[in-house]
């Protein structure tokens, strides 16, 4: 086991992860550019990944790390589709400002 990792306590990982997650949430809620919102979602995903990896090391179990691979694979797919949707929306409306993309209502 890497001694430098051992030296850093779990709470540090969780703290960084929480900060990253909060930044992501704030970005999703406040930014108007769809791509930035999208990037913020990725940030939230990665903060969760960090938590998983942290716990995995702390508990000495590989389960968390395996789950992280799944999250990354899903995130990659999601990114591909999300960007495709953003491009399609831009072609139709000439904008990616999500305030103006409010057609999905009754």
């Amino acid at each position, binding site marked *: 086991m890497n001694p430098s990792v051992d030296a850093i306590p779990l709470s540090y990982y969780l703290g960084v992860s929480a900060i990253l997650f909060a930044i992501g*949430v704030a970005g*999703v*809620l406040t930014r108007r550019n769809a791509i930035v919102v999208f990037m913020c979602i990725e940030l939230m995903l990665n903060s969760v990944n960090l938590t998983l990896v942290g716990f995995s090391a702390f508990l000495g179990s590989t389960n968390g790390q395996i789950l992280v691979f799944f999250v990354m694979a899903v995130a990659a797919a999601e990114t591909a589709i999300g960007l495709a949707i953003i491009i399609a929306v831009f072609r139709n409306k000439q904008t990616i400002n*999500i*305030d103006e*993309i*409010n*057609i*999905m*209502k*009754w």
Partner: protein
Amino acid sequence: MVNYAGYIVLLPLVGFLVNGLFGKKMNSEKLSGVIGSGCVGVSFALAVAILFEMMKAPVGERAHIVEIFQWIAAGSLTINAAYQIDQLSIVMTLVVTGVGFLIHVYSIGYMHGDKGFWRFFAYLNLFIFMMLNLILANNFVLMFLGWEGVGLCSYLLIGFWHDRKFDTGGYKPGTATTSDAAKKAFIVNRIGDFGFLIAMFMIFHLFGSLTFEDVFSRAAAVGTVGDKTFFWITILLFLGATGKSAQIPLFVWLPDAMAGPTPVSALIHAATMVTAGVYMIARCSVLFALAPLTMNIVAGIGMATAVFAATIGLVQNDIKKVLAYSTISQLGYMFVGLGVGSFAAGIFHVITHAFFKALLFLGAGAVIHAMHEEQDIQRMGGLKEHMPTTYKTFFVAALAISGIPPLAGFFSKDEILFRAFSQGSVVLWLFGWITAGLTAFYMFRLVSLTFEGAPRWNKDKHPHEAPKVMTVPLIILGVLSIVGGFIGIPASLGGNNALEHWLDPVFERSRMYLALLPDTSASSEYFLMALSIAVAVGGVLFARTLYLRKPEVAQKIASSFKGIYSLFWNKYFVDEIYDAGIVTPVVKSSEKLLWKGIDIGIIDGMVNGSAKLMGWLSSRMRKIQVGVAQTYAIAFVVGILVILAILLGHS
């Protein structure tokens, strides 16, 4: 032989199935007619064979129960499809299949060329099947099956020409079709059936069984003469009988039932089905004997109906209407016989009436046929030269129904009148006597106007005698109308009242409860007989003088008693009264209250209301959906925070 009793019932069913399923494909009047009549004919032959076997057996061993299969078994209730062959049911079976067979044969001629020929025979056979179930059943439920079944067949056959216009006799003219008459018959009968059903429930509740033998043998153990329960059971059964046998207050359907083809009027609405009520009461004689009050009501209603219908019959001009009211009147006689405790006399009149009334209707059918569907006797006259056989047989039947000795009607009617006098009261007898005079009068008014006098029809009509297939049944029935009464010649005339003795074992039990008076002396019987012969002959002669020699006097009488005449002509406005008092209120309240109020208002209102409530709520809720993704995201985050706070607050 008695084991073959099931086939008596089965054969007409087979005929119904063959004609009903393949009749259209066979497309042959000959084949349909032969199958239809043949099945009933064989049934009749079987019944005759069983009768002879019963006559040979000693009195105590004549009755049999033939079980076919277990029909219903539920808890303590077990009902078998079983037939009771006894002295009463075999007599009725003979009448139904015998007269039925003749009418089937007659129908081959009468219905010739009708596009529904096969359908007609299928219905007739189904009717015979149901009627035999009614008669032969050994329990109330199977009897009720037959009871409903004949009602259904009556409905189907009244409305046989369902697209034809039908003259109700001044009431709502020009609007009715024969299917309206059929519906009327069905609905009015429904009221009676309701009574029958309730009575059946009460019987099961009281006796724990619906088999005749069980019920009648336990009757004495369950209650004493005059118990309230017996009164209600019998009065409800009698309500059923008034429906089926067209008595006051439910007689209104029978005159309209004449909308059906004439053989149907003869078979169902004169000879057999309408006597079902009489038969049912005779069958339940034990129960009725235990309820003296009901017996008095039966006699009273019977007599009221007899007089009432006879007065209407005096003035009607439709040949079938006259016969219809005559039927109602004669059925009234039968109920008088039952009501005074002389069940055998009632059944005796059922039998003789079946002969001469079937003959009268079939004769009327031949006339209507010859006159190209003309039914108004004011536009007939002088037909005796053109249709001698029909005239002769019709004349015989008219004599028989009028009570001229020694024809059939004399013996049976006189038996009833005599019993009404000796067991009932003078008033009862007096009304019966008057009705006998009225009967003789209206029958010979009918004969005179139809067959005699000068022709009053257009010369383009060419009335002709009916074909052999129709006249032969007329002749046979004519012979039966003459000799039919000899089965019940009273002792005072040197006979031995064979029918009454034959039926004795069936009614034996009921006599234990009846407070029968000793028969009055033979001299008073002779005196009564002389009086009834006098009134019958008087009625006949009066009608013949009035309508053949002095038609202007008839006119004068009609115009000088205008009030009474129009009362009779309009049938005492009973249809109008029922319409205003019952039908219209029911229709209006159904429409206004049940349909528009309860159905549309409350039931539909509840269903549509819940949908509307949801719609209204949704229309408010949808305001929340703004379509801006970040609004949703904020709601989402706030939600998570709230849940987190709650969870952390708990732990």
